[in-house]
């Protein structure tokens, strides 16, 4: 696999919370402009792994990562890499919609403003473009000054997506983005992911196997080992994982025998 094809490559990634090893020895590749799903039972470390992809775990006291995570041929965990810069280029959408208690406009303009963009016309542009990409523009264009918290849950999550893509990241990490949403809002987010795929690489953690099967190109299945640490059991094309998995544990999980 050539360098230009992958967005992220994990090499023997181990993630610790204090003494506890939450994720053991994960090696995998996230391909560009594809949607990669991380699935597995609760507590298998899939969210932890996802949050290591943009060094979000740095914010957790005691969290530590060993191994390599390559992004454009650079190890994101090398001491010369600035975690803040990493998060600018690898954006994140969270499990529960978390818009800032600010106007819709300010929510989307937040990232660009932090990066130093001050010009009103330029910000207006970015806000409109991002909201359009997040399929939210038509619903909010007349109330950009209203608080982001006045929107419905699904709209809030799309606002968070708009906020994330306003800084034009290369990769978008989504941590169970639909778990707090109803089925119709979920469907909209899934459609949106398919549209965003053309410009972004997406990694999604999901509890919902149907969702992984519906939206993703690649699927990584994780499980805890006998030391209660998360391991990557199988990683392959989504179709293969759901129709003809190599590992019996994967088969048991995707056919609903446990989990």
């Amino acid at each position, binding site marked *: 696999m050539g360098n230009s094809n992958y967005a992220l490559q994990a090499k023997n990634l181990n993630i610790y919370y204090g003494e506890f090893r939450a994720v053991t020895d994960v090696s995998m590749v996230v391909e560009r402009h594809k949607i990669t799903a991380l699935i597995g039972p609760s507590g298998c470390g899939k969210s932890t792994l996802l949050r290591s992809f*943009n060094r*979000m775990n740095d*914010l957790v*006291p005691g969290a530590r990562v060993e191994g390599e995570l390559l992004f454009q041929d650079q190890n994101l965990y090398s001491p010369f890499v600035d975690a*803040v*810069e990493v*998060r*600018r*280029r690898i*954006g*994140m959408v*969270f499990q*529960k919609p*978390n*818009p*800032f*208690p*600010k106007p819709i406009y300010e929510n989307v303009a*937040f*990232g660009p*403003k*932090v*990066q130093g963009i001050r010009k009103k016309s330029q910000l207006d542009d970015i806000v409109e473009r991002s909201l359009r990409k997040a399929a939210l523009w038509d619903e909010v264009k007349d109330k950009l000054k209203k*608080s982001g*918290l006045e929107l419905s849950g699904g709209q809030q999550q799309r606002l*968070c997506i708009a*906020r*994330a893509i306003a*800084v034009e990241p290369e990769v978008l990490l989504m941590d169970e983005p639909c778990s707090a949403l109803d089925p119709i809002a979920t469907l909209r987010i899934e459609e949106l992911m398919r549209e965003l795929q053309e410009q972004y690489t997406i990694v999604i953690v999901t509890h919902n196997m149907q969702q992984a099967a519906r939206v993703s190109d690649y699927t990584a299945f994780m499980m805890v080992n006998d030391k209660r640490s998360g391991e990557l059991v199988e990683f392959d094309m989504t179709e293969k994982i759901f129709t003809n998995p190599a590992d019996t544990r994967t088969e048991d999980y995707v056919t609903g025998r446990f989990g």
Partner: protein
Amino acid sequence: MGGILFFCGFLSIFTTIGVVVILGNQSLHLFNREQCVQAGGATAEEVFCGHATIGEFLTGTEWVPDQLKFGVLPLVFSTAMTSLIAMFVAVPLGLGAAIYLSEYATPSIRKTLKPILEVLAGIPTVVYGYFALTFMSPVLRDVLGQDTVRTFNMASAGLVMGIMILPLMASMSEDALSAVPRSLREGSAGLGATKLETTIRVVVPAAISGIIAALIISISRAVGETMIVAIAAGASPNFTFVPFDYAETMTGHVVRISGGENPYDSVGYNSIFAIAFLLFFITLALNIVGRYLVTRFREVYE
């Protein structure tokens, strides 16, 4: 049980109403009764009488009850000056301490520092008063010159009052900052904001209603503070804007006059009720403004 609880609530409300009624009623004596003083002190025989008006009370710049001069402004300005100086100390330091404790300190540092801060809040104000008089004033005089700074001055009282209020400001602001959900901090960090940017642009604005509440309570505390200003700010009214000058505050004046012999319905007696009632009004107004600001800036997070 419900009856007992009702009684508790009723008692506190009843006390408040009682205080307001007595305070208002007594303070009116200054304006609707003729005030008489003996010219040239208590031994002199000549007696002067006159009426105080509310207009004179609120706009006059001389407070000499013995000469029937009832302008409360010198006392009000002195209170405002000491409170302002106190807020200049307490707000930036308190907010800084709160941000440090809530955003930067490790859990073990926070666990040690917060109780210490709260102990600071438990120091009796009379101790602070003598600290102002015997430490802060000499320091100010040494630094700025014996001619510039008087022994009794508003600056040292205000500075020490700021130190006294600091823990309150810090503790209440820290509570407000800590109440901001972690998800907002993560959302901001996920967009490439540094910790400082996250704190200034997300956490502080989200906690602003709590911080304003802390600010208003701190101001009320400064305006109502008595012991420090009574000891360190000076013991006679002085209409001045120079912080290094002596000047008695409203509370300082009330406590000094009420300490001496003041027969019922005498000029001194009536005048301190009027001051106390005005003080009550000021703090009430501050609380109303505070409540308004809290709802105005409230950013509900969830």
